[in-house]
């Protein structure tokens, strides 16, 4: 069968026109900053408690505030990190305490929804945009964490029920090696910017831009001279943002940084912060008053969980009260997640000796050194 000479080019032109019609051409991105809250004069407060146990080993907590004011947490837990029984667990905090954890993503459920084999699950990230609660989490089919793919699910009822997860297309090579650890930032166009990272062969931070309808419309590399991963990002104004990254070694490590001056379109490596990083995850939060807060580990290992504050958009940093510190170098207080709720309270969740997730809540006065 021979086609008319004109038919293939005609079909091609129609297809190109359709593809061009569908191709996104987004406006220049801009960060959306939350309205500044009035400063409170509350006395210093600090309280900490373990979340209910979901399984023997727990790691990588993430926090979000629900529209009704409840605090939501997710983390992965199972027999041990990487085990087949690891699931992403979810619990909420209200006046009565933490709810019983529910598994919101499992290996079997993810495999069924994505129609692809899944060997293990890893880091989750929660974010509530006011209309729905997002969950991103990584899954691996073969190999270690460098083989991770990114999945996304949403809940329209505050985490009670979740849509089947969808595997996002973020890499051309077997769609592997996109991981997440820190929450996204809202963009002025209704979309989101999600800090991500790559760790197959090279290790570097990435920035995934989502449109308001949830499509990935850009991916930007946060290039560094050293191996870096797990970026956490805070917007400084509509155009400027600071990213801090875990130092992938060699030791001794410092918290690495990158900056954007164009709403996340490009990221430029900046000087390392004068803060230690023993190749461990860090969290950063822009407080309601505009100050920046970092949570991370000390120089020696993960046996200290420390806080630092910057009053000048990240130019200088000073220590805030210590959250955890023990002499045993084998102890682990790691993978912090930070969130400031609308009432001004600052929440910190972190891995506690891999046995569970601990939640600390404190306020500005405690952060500034006042004693509860």
């Amino acid at each position: 069968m021979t086609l008319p000479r004109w038919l293939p080019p005609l079909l091609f032109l129609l297809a190109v026109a359709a593809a061009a019609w569908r191709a996104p051409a987004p406006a220049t991105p801009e960060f959306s900053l939350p309205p500044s809250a009035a400063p409170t004069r509350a006395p210093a407060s600090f309280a900490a408690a373990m979340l209910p146990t979901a399984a023997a080993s727990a790691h990588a907590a993430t926090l979000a505030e629900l529209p009704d004011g409840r605090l939501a947490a997710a983390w992965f837990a199972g027999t041990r990190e990487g085990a087949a029984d690891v699931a992403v667990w979810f619990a909420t905090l209200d006046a009565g305490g933490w709810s019983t954890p529910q598994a919101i993503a499992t290996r079997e459920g993810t495999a069924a929804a994505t129609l692809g084999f899944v060997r293990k699950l890893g880091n989750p990230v929660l974010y509530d945009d006011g209309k729905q609660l997002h969950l991103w989490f990584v899954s691996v089919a073969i190999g270690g964490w460098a083989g991770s793919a990114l999945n996304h699910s949403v809940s329209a009822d505050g985490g009670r029920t979740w849509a089947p997860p969808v595997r996002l297309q973020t890499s051309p090579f077997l769609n592997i090696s996109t991981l997440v650890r820190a929450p996204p930032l809202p963009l002025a166009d209704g979309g989101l910017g999600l800090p991500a990272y790559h760790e197959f062969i090279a290790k570097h931070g990435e920035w995934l831009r989502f449109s308001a309808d949830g499509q990935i419309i850009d991916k930007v590399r946060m290039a560094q001279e050293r191996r870096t991963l797990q970026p956490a990002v805070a917007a400084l104004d509509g155009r400027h943002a600071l990213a801090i990254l875990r130092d992938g070694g060699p030791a001794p490590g410092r918290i690495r940084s990158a900056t954007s001056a164009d709403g996340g379109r490009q990221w430029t490596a900046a000087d390392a912060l004068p803060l230690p990083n023993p190749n461990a995850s860090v969290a950063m939060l822009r407080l309601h008053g505009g100050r920046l807060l970092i949570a991370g580990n000390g120089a020696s290992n993960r046996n200290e969980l420390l806080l630092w504050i910057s009053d000048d958009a990240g130019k200088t940093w000073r220590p805030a009260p210590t959250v955890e510190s023990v002499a045993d170098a084998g102890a682990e207080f790691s993978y912090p997640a930070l969130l400031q709720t609308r009432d001004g309270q600052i929440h910190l969740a972190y891995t506690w000796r891999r046995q569970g997730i601990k939640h600390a809540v404190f306020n500005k006065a405690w952060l500034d050194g006042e004693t509860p």
Partner: protein
Amino acid sequence: MSATALYGFVAHAIIFGALIMLLPLGDRRRMLAFVAIPVALATGIASFMHGFAGTPSLTLLALTVWQLIAIKPAPLTYRPALILLAFALPFYAMALGLGPLDPYALGYQPLPMLAASLPLAALLWWRRLDGWLLILALDFAGYASGLFANLWDVLFDPLLVLVALTVVIRHHARRVPNDG
């Protein structure tokens, strides 16, 4: 489940069928290849391939179907395979972290890529390579359907590059003249 997940799952079953057709099974290999497709869907083979390799490109699927139906020889001959390899290998190296640029990012806002395809299409038409022109049309239609977030994923994937590598190696092993 999403439409993209369903596409990837079924496409891998078809690819598995095409792999069976490569085996020395005599006259029954085409029939066995078609039998292998539902077997792959039912036994978890397609699920494993999908989990491991991600969503296959439409180009790979088109070439696979082309081979299964076998109306004519598939258009992935030596020269196109060599061009694909020459493009894909540095592309993957850069996308995986070599250097500061990530060419994969271009595929999320692909208007420049679509514009660049117009002279390529004119060349294909002029050279009467209608098979490739139709595959390219299918690729772009697939992208327009919303199945793929990134245009590069429609055009090629690591399995297709592996097939291209096999074509090139076989060509040199047999020392046949350039047929592109």
